[in-house]
């Protein structure tokens, strides 16, 4: 290979990172792919329910790519930029076809066509699926293609390597590489590249327990933020309505359970046209007669029923438990698939097995007990794009598409703040990951080929690389040598508890301000953190503790943005400002890191609406036999 052939670094081997790698490699540029875990074990394997795309069956019932876009914007409470959503939904059918060609075992109809299921926020069947392990199947298909390109020398994998810092050339202010650490030998090294794609996923671990995997700390995004990349809408975090709270993690029960006909209910009795908490709410669910089951979502949202978007279902479940309607009076409601035909349950095997394995109950016979849990980050690294003049999509192959404010540094997948606005619709994330990789990957290749002014990364002097590497080595040295008293795991637990209680389903200003103070205190204690392992071989303690510092910084931006957004929109619910306020807040939050004072600076940027005018987001809610609540208790928000 020619010595100064440009190279591209992709950080992250989930769906977004793998799709980007194969696309860029196919465009003829060599890729260095970094991941903390073997890419086949990335968090994307957890995705269960499916991936959305307009299809011929739905089309003949009136659905279209345009409607898919409209649903996505309505679901996102119009905080999403419209041209990228337009482009993504119009590419969706092609993406399904491509994944199909790669051999993804999508479920089939009797005629051999791809089967479809219902999903939240839509009245049409437009979700493609492979059992209840769709993310796993999609990721494996891209993992296989990556392996194939690897044998051809087009992709070079660095697994068990942790990204530490983006290297930015001080003269041109463009990203020219990264610093990373081998998680086994603990060697720290810089790598040169003419473009860097961040595809490092979400930040659920900031909330302690979530439905995300253990490496989803947001650490990588936070490092880019500290290096000068901006965050977009960091306050928007999705709390999924249906998870099983656990000791170490909240395990998701996918929306597909409801898509296939699962129903949410609580034990209750109806007197004088009003529902009252069930006198014996701890009774075995199978002994509770139909007349004593309150199907809360179906009653309040006759149009969408159990398939309202997640933020709405989450709030309903959360409040109903606060009003004393929870199972046994506690913080759980029933998610029931026991009435479904065997054939339908079979399509849900993947998740029903998880429920059975971790709770010991068989959900095929007994309703599942579930509660909301932190699930997805709509916010992330701020990115730009080049729209078509009429707003209908982006300019294909444009090097701007999904570039951060730092030239040459891109953000794809969940770490990218685009597409979902204030709430993500189910089965749109897998789509956005693959779309970013395959569609925007071309822009990265074009950028590197045709748009770099000045010296290529390989030919730059070593100064900037050495400096960034030195900075990271110093950080490690400080952590190793610190003889303070704070235990990083305890600090993390407090961070998680505080964030979950103050900044999930319900966000009250006074509570968030309290959390903000705690956060400052945790940051101070972090300076005295003590490692229990100071060796330099496979030191997981070091990696976790370093990420904790980055989580604290990310959490501060998230909290600050939540406090300052004085309105309610999508997943961001402020009891003190219960209405959406388009005049003040139909805007993207941009968080810039003020390194000198170690705090976020927040700015707002209007969101243009070239295609669809924002409208009220009600999902046809009706007021029905409202609850007669017992006294409202203060309870921590979301499972933790």
């Amino acid at each position, binding site marked *: 290979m020619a010595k100064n052939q440009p190279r591209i670094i992709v950080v992250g081997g989930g769906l977004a990172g793998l799709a980007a790698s194969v696309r860029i490699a196919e465009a003829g540029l060599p890729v260095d792919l970094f991941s903390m875990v*073997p890419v086949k*074990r990335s968090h994307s394997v957890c995705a269960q329910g499916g991936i959305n795309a307009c299809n011929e069956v739905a089309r003949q019932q009136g659905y279209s790519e345009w409607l898919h876009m409209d649903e996505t914007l309505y679901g996102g409470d119009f905080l999403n930029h419209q041209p990228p959503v337009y482009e993504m939904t119009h590419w969706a059918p092609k993406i399904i076809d491509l994944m*199909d060609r790669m051999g993804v075992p999508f479920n089939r109809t009797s005629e051999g*066509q791809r089967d479809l299921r219902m999903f939240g926020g839509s009245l049409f069947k437009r979700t493609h699926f492979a059992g209840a392990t769709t993310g796993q199947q999609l990721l494996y*298909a891209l993992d296989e293609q990556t392996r194939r390109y690897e044998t051809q020398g087009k992709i070079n994998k660095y697994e068990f390597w942790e990204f530490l810092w983006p290297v930015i050339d001080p003269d041109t202010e463009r990203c020219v590489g990264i610093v990373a650490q081998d998680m086994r030998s603990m060697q720290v090294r810089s790598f040169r590249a003419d473009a860097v794609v961040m595809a490092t996923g979400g930040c659920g671990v900031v909330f302690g327990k979530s439905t995300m995997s*253990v490496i989803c700390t947001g650490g990588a995004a936070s490092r880019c933020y500290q290096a000068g990349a901006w965050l977009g809408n960091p306050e928007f975090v999705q709390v999924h309505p249906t998870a099983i709270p*656990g000791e170490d993690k909240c*395990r998701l029960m996918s929306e597909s359970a409801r898509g296939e006909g699962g129903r949410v209910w609580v034990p209750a009795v109806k007197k004088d046209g009003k529902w009252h908490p069930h006198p014996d709410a701890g009774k075995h669910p199978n002994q509770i007669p139909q007349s004593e089951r309150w199907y809360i979502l179906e009653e309040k949202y006759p149009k969408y029923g159990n398939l309202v978007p997640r933020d709405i279902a989450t709030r309903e479940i959360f409040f109903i438990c606060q009003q004393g309607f929870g199972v046994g009076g506690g913080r759980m409601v029933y998610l029931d698939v026991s009435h479904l035909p065997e054939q339908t349950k079979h399509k849900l095997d993947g998740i029903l097995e998880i429920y059975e394995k971790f709770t010991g109950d068989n959900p095929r016979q007994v309703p599942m007990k579930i509660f909301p849990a932190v699930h997805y980050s709509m916010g992330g690294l701020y990115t730009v794009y080049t729209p078509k003049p009429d707003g209908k999509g982006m300019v294909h192959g444009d090097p701007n598409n999904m570039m951060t404010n730092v030239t040459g540094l891109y953000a794809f997948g969940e770490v990218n703040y685009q597409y979902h606005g204030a709430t993500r619709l189910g089965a749109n994330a897998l789509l956005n990951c693959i779309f970013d990789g395959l569609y925007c990957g071309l822009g990265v290749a074009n950028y590197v080929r045709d748009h770099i002014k000045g010296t290529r990364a390989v030919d730059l002097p070593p100064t900037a690389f050495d400096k960034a590497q030195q900075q990271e080595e110093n950080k490690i040295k400080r952590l190793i040598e610190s003889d303070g008293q704070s235990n990083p795991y305890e600090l993390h637990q407090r961070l998680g508890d505080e964030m979950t209680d103050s900044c999930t389903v319900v966000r009250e200003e006074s509570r968030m301000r309290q959390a903000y103070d705690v956060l400052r205190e945790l940051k101070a204690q972090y300076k005295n953190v003590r490692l*229990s392992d100071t060796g330099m071989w496979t030191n997981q*303690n070091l990696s976790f503790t370093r990420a904790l510092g980055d989580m604290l910084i990310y959490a501060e931006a998230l909290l600050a943005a939540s406090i300052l957004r004085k309105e309610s929109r999508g997943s961001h619910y402020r009891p003190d400002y219960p209405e959406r306020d388009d005049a003040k807040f139909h805007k993207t939050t941009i968080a810039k890191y003020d390194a000198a004072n170690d705090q976020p600076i927040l700015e707002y940027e209007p969101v243009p609406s070239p295609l669809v005018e924002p409208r009220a987001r009600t999902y046809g809610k009706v007021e029905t036999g409202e609850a007669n609540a017992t006294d409202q208790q203060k309870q921590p928000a979301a499972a933790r």
Partner: protein
Amino acid sequence: MSSETNKNRTIRFKIKRQDAPDSPSYWDEFDAPCPPGANVISCLLWIAANPTTTTGRQATPVAWDCNCLEEVCGACTMVINGRARQSCSALIDELQKEDPVVTLEPMSKFPVVRDLVVDRSRIFNALTKVKAWVPVDGMHAMGPGPTETPQQQETRYALSRCMSCGCCLEACPQYLIDNEFIGAHAISQARYFNAHATGASLAGNRLDALEGPGGITDCGNAQNCVKVCPKEIPLTESIADIGRQTTVHAIEKFFTGK
């Protein structure tokens, strides 16, 4: 055990440790509180935060691999009470039925990196050997893939869920840390891709790879693999099926001279 004692119980963990690939191994014991519903990983997390052994020694935290915590990523495999399985789905309540002490060891068929972390790159290399992919023309939109019947999909789906966890290899008497045997998971993946209309175009290459040394003839048909696979992948069916395919392939090669 009454539910009251259950809530405050402490469980003893006996953990086989090793500081580096060529260091000697040793055992540490820890007592960890185990609330109801705890699994091995939640206890390992507690131990990481409080790494004091039962003899009062300040130990380094135990190293182990994990990611998804819901038995889909395959990262967290270890030998628990003598059997290879995922530590995220190994519930303490279930383990208590086997033994009051929970014994954790790294898998023995792979080189130890540290403590419970092993180097499983051989699992992924095997996938390269059998060309475990569909050779698509490229990443462009070129219409849908081949249709298949729901029955074909069911068969392939069952095979596609292999998460490269290594349990089948740990259990296999023919798979040794220092031999060439490719392993049941890779044989099964060859079947998976041979069963796909486009994937089948590489069937010959896959069968060639499985005919040679370290290939399917090394399987002694002990059937241990299928019993331990957490994803219930029909491994012995795959082995039988690939066995038939290699026989036919060998005969074809003999007669066509290709």
